């Protein structure tokens, strides 16, 4: 399938899943997963980076409009999109651009590192901007960790569900 078409579909699917389902989970009263960041992680390595940046900006902005949360999702998403090449280099080594990394292939330690790092960075920025007070660092960190674990579980489930079946 065409790459840009696939990405547009992912954009819409992740946005609607987040708004319709994942924002209403409220596990233990307050924990919600944010698996929409899979849009940023699953974006093809060799495609245009500026498009990803703009895409994650609009994904975050639309989510912020739905959640009445100002600009927290937008900021967290674009920072993650900007840091993505660095994270890839960190987890796959310097030559990541030459191997066609597809996160859906197999859950190797490298891919789990990448996913976890991306989730923790995104969630920390998200919750830090949401609380917006350094005095609450402990609360921010604990919410980051709990939510990150939840998001990680959901992300793995989604990745396995949409895994293409060719060998």
């Amino acid at each position, binding site marked *: 399938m065409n790459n840009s078409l696939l990405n547009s579909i992912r954009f819409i699917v992740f946005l609607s899943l987040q708004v*319709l389902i994942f924002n209403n989970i409220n596990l233990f009263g307050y924990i919600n997963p944010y698996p929409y960041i899979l849009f940023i992680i699953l974006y093809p390595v060799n495609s245009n980076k500026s498009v990803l940046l703009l895409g994650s900006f609009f994904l975050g902005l639309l989510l912020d*409009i739905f959640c009445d949360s100002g600009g927290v999702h937008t900021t967290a998403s674009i920072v993650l999109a900007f840091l993505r090449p660095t994270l890839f280099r960190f987890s796959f080594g310097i030559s990541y651009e030459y191997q066609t990394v597809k996160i859906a292939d197999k859950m190797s330690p490298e891919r789990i590192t990448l996913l976890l790092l991306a989730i923790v960075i995104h969630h920390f920025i998200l919750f830090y901007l949401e609380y*917006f007070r350094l005095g609450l660092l402990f609360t921010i960190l604990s919410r980051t960790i709990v939510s990150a674990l939840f998001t990680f579980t959901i992300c793995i489930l989604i990745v396995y569900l949409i895994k293409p079946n060719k060998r």
Partner: protein
Amino acid sequence: MQQIINFIIKNSYRLLFLLLLVLSLSLTIKSHTYHRSEYINSANKITGSVYTQLNYVNEYFSLKEKNKELASENALLKKLLFNKKDTLVTSKTLFRNDLNNFNVVVGKAIKNSFNTRENYITINAGKVLGIKTDMGVINDKGIVGIVEKTSKDFATIQSVLNIKSKINAKIKNSDHFGSLVWDGKNVGFAQLIDVPRLASLRKGDSIVTGGNSDIFPENIPIGKIDKIFIDRKTNYYTINVRLFNDMTALGYVYVIENKKKKQKQELEAITTAPKK
């Protein structure tokens, strides 16, 4: 000039990132100040219709419960009407024009959040039904919040569970008043601050809205006193209030318009204005 253009072309990706970062950070910072952004809220057509559709589905799961609540509220209102002191007052003469200070519009909460420190509710009633910013919102159990932004058919409400919310409230029967705020921790409790030490308090006393508020009518239930602290710095009481309302499950709400609000505010402005 050539070098500037070269620099921009070379660093276009980074410049784009910085531009978007500044944009999104300014949105974030704006959302934490008192007046929120004009466009980034869920009271618009697209988000409103999505939440309406979602609500159509979710509604069915609590239909029985909501009907029961409605019936019990009707029973309570009937009881008030049957046991009135003045037998000349009937349900028709109750709405005399000179006493008609408040207008009530019904709305339904189609989106409710309670897991952040700044929570907002979206309802499916807007400007068409006469809803404006700074009207009070209640339901049959107690207060819900204050209208923040409105569009044609939708409105967002600053929930009681919002650290920016501040509502005038008093202890029932004693008339000592304070401000109702939320500390951002527990969704079942709000805090009543700045209550003078003279007030006699007991655990279990009811807290209701105060008469100083331009937004809510007096004596709307809020909650019960759960714990009483003394603020060391100011020597005022700080009271933990257990809310009557379950803010995590809202259905129909009532938006209250105070018709005499403008008159009152104008009078107060004239009184406090510096004399020439």
